[in-house]
């Protein structure tokens, strides 16, 4: 039977009459403008924003300041790249800020309080993030909770509480260089944290686009039932998604330690909201199935550029909050319009 089945495939290939398949022109040429906007809309936004800020505050465009932006964007970029995965599956991870805090205080306890090797501390830190994410995934899939909003809202509180309990609510100072390195140092003028972001982004892009699991993530977000009926192990993929998201939060925490030379149990408060904002500004959809690494990076940069630029202009931090809120709404509104446009 196996051979016979192969036959079916071969016969179908033979039907081609020997003609090589010729790719046709896209029949929807008219819509190319929109397709471009779809794909690079966030990039145009970033460029436009930079131009405006340069006019208002010329010091924005200096190398020093741009490196500053890169450094400021790093933590949110790492969390956002993690957040991208749940959002593509039409889910969400509200616990990343708490995971960040829990993983850095655990890393701090191991290295500072117990005086163990920084390598062990680093492993504990990253592993804590991954395990916390794994638990999120297990809660979602094994308890059949209706939506990850609920499971991660719960663990957001649990992880934050644990971080406060294990530290007695006080921050940990004095990390060894190995752990501080990523957040603190630069290579020439480029912050190591930003280099880490680029490396992680490249890996994430390959993961999402060139591995079966990555494909499955898009498939689940696009149509969960069709995914299941196509033989995709939906639960297993979702568990991986939340584990990666947790791991990325820990990675963001590692950068934060370097920048503040401390690990605070109240670190990362509301970071999940910035991460969600970056992913959505970057063109992902809450409806699932859509979202890219490049878009997410741009989304994180837009937020960082906004904060930095508004600072340079001398805008109060209160007003900054208002502006960022408006940008989020605008970005999601664009998403709504796009959805409307593609629906028949």
């Amino acid at each position, binding site marked *: *039977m196996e051979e*016979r*089945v*192969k*036959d*079916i*495939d071969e*016969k*179908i*290939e033979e*039907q*081609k009459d020997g*003609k090589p*398949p*010729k*790719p*046709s*022109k*896209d*029949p*929807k040429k008219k819509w190319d403008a929109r397709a471009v906007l779809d794909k690079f809309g966030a990039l145009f936004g970033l460029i436009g924003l930079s131009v405006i800020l340069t006019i208002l505050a010329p010091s924005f465009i200096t190398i020093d300041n741009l490196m500053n932006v890169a450094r400021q964007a790093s933590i949110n970029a790492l969390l956002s790249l993690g957040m991208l995965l749940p959002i593509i599956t039409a889910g969400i991870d509200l616990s990343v800020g708490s995971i960040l805090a829990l993983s850095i205080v655990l890393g701090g306890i191991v290295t500072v309080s117990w005086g163990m090797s920084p390598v062990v501390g680093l492993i504990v830190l990253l592993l804590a993030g991954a395990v916390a994410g794994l638990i999120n995934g297990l809660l979602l899939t094994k308890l059949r909770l209706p939506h990850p909003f609920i499971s991660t809202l719960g663990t957001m509180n649990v992880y934050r509480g644990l971080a406060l309990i294990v530290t007695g609510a006080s921050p940990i100072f004095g990390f060894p260089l190995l752990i501080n390195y990523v957040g603190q140092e630069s290579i020439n003028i480029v912050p190591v944290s930003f280099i880490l972001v680029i490396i992680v982004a490249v890996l994430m892009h*390959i993961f999402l*686009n*060139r*591995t*079966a699991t990555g*494909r*499955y993530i*898009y*498939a689940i977000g*696009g*149509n969960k*039932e*069709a*995914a*299941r*009926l*196509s*033989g*995709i*192990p939906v639960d297993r993929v979702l568990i991986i998604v939340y584990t990666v998201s947790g791991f990325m939060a820990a990675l963001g925490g590692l950068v934060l330690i370097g920048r503040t030379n401390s690990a605070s149990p109240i670190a990362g408060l509301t970071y999940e909201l910035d991460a969600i904002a970056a992913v959505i500004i970057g063109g992902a959809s809450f409806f699932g*199935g*859509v979202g890219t690494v490049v878009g997410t990076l741009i989304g994180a940069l837009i937020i960082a550029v906004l904060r930095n630029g508004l600072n340079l202009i001398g805008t109060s931090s209160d007003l900054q909050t208002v502006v960022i809120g408006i940008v989020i709404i605008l970005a999601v509104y664009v998403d709504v319009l796009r959805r409307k446009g*593609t629906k*028949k």
Partner: protein
Amino acid sequence: MLLEMKNVSKSFSGVQVLHDINLGVKEGEVHVLLGENGAGKSTIIKILTGAYTKDTGDVYWDKQVLEVNEPKDAIDAGIATIYQELNLIPELSVMENIFLGHEQKKGSKFSLLDRATMREKAKKLMSRLGQNTDPDELVQNLGVGRQQLVEIAKALSLNARLIIMDEPTSSLSGSETEQLLLTVERLREQGITFIYISHRLEEIKRIGDSITILRDGAKVDTVKVENTSVDEMIALMVGRTLDNKFPKMESSRGEEGLRVENFKLNSDSKEINFTAYTGEILGFSGLVGAGRTELMRGIFAADSIESGDIYIFGKKKKIANPKQAIREGIAFITEDRKGEGLFLDQPLHFNKTIAKLKEIKRNGLLSIRKQKNVSNTYVESLKIKPNNINLLAQNLSGGNQQKVVIAKWLFTQAKVFIFDEPTRGIDVGAKVEVYNLINELVKLGACVIIVSSELPEILGMCDRILVMHEGEITGDFKVKEANQEIIMRAATGG
């Protein structure tokens, strides 16, 4: 005449689904619409209720022209519809459901609700139906039969003169059905008119006054129930000659492909046994809701089952989830193409390769070139148009979307193909292409099962036909000894 439709036509993207329908419903009668699935009954109802707008023709209500542009227009005129899926809010009480949207107030629009009056009226309405249901009972605590009566009470509270019922008894038990029929008879005596859709001919015989028979979107005839036998009804309903819309090929039975033994979907259902062979097409006929899709989903392990054994090419296989079903070589082309088959946001190549990504891997990563090559091959051989593998699935026509789904399953190298309503919603030309593909599969030794509610399709394409009725196989025919009457009789449990 209370309601008249004159020369009403409707088409969807070029496909005409209703041809010049003339329908007259007399006040105080139970007027039955009868026809196969897809004959146009639902379309007529949807035009009357404002879900669709007619292309041409007129609707007269009480001799006045009636324009129904939205559901509210129909309700205001006095036309209420009770769908198979009930429109009740389970968490609210009987009374609250009856008056939902037209609550009684104590005074002006902004006053508080007058619960006492509503309770009183609800009680009266229910007693008009011969019921003494407590108005404060939550709807979720009632059985389906009594929930339906609440819907009827709601219709009466809106002063409906015509109540349209779409297969009201399909989900009712025997005693619930009896109660509903009694209620309909009772209301008819009170002067309420009914348009009644049902496949159950004995039931029609009992409560119907006249029957309009539809076929392929056109009216065949309107007859008096008392002058028409069940046999005549069936003949009028299916009486159509098959032409060569079906490119059936001659082939002979090969080896056993799929054998299903002692298969029970749940503890109450009856055991199902059947065998499908290579070299022939096995058709599953029956009315909507007969349990064919449920059976196929059970075989594919899309839903869990109670018990039963599956043999693939003679070997017993354990299949616990779709992934294992695919590994054992089963392909399941679902009836709901968009909901269960396609990833609409994704390009063709994604849809095509997703069930067997292993095949396009190189060095552990997915190879874009391999993906392109295999996808182009299928686009070409299945004549998918436009032939651009980067096009999103949502931008294809129904027929081409179906081909993409079939391509996905061909790529899994399945040997048992289950097609559930393979040509639903696709045009005639694309249908023939799908049939040709199915033929090709048979020729190459696959075992093919087609579930279809379209009798001509079943008779035109299959070699053997199993008929299901209420979860049970009630007929097993070679195509040569089958005709529409015989199948319809088995499908209606007759």
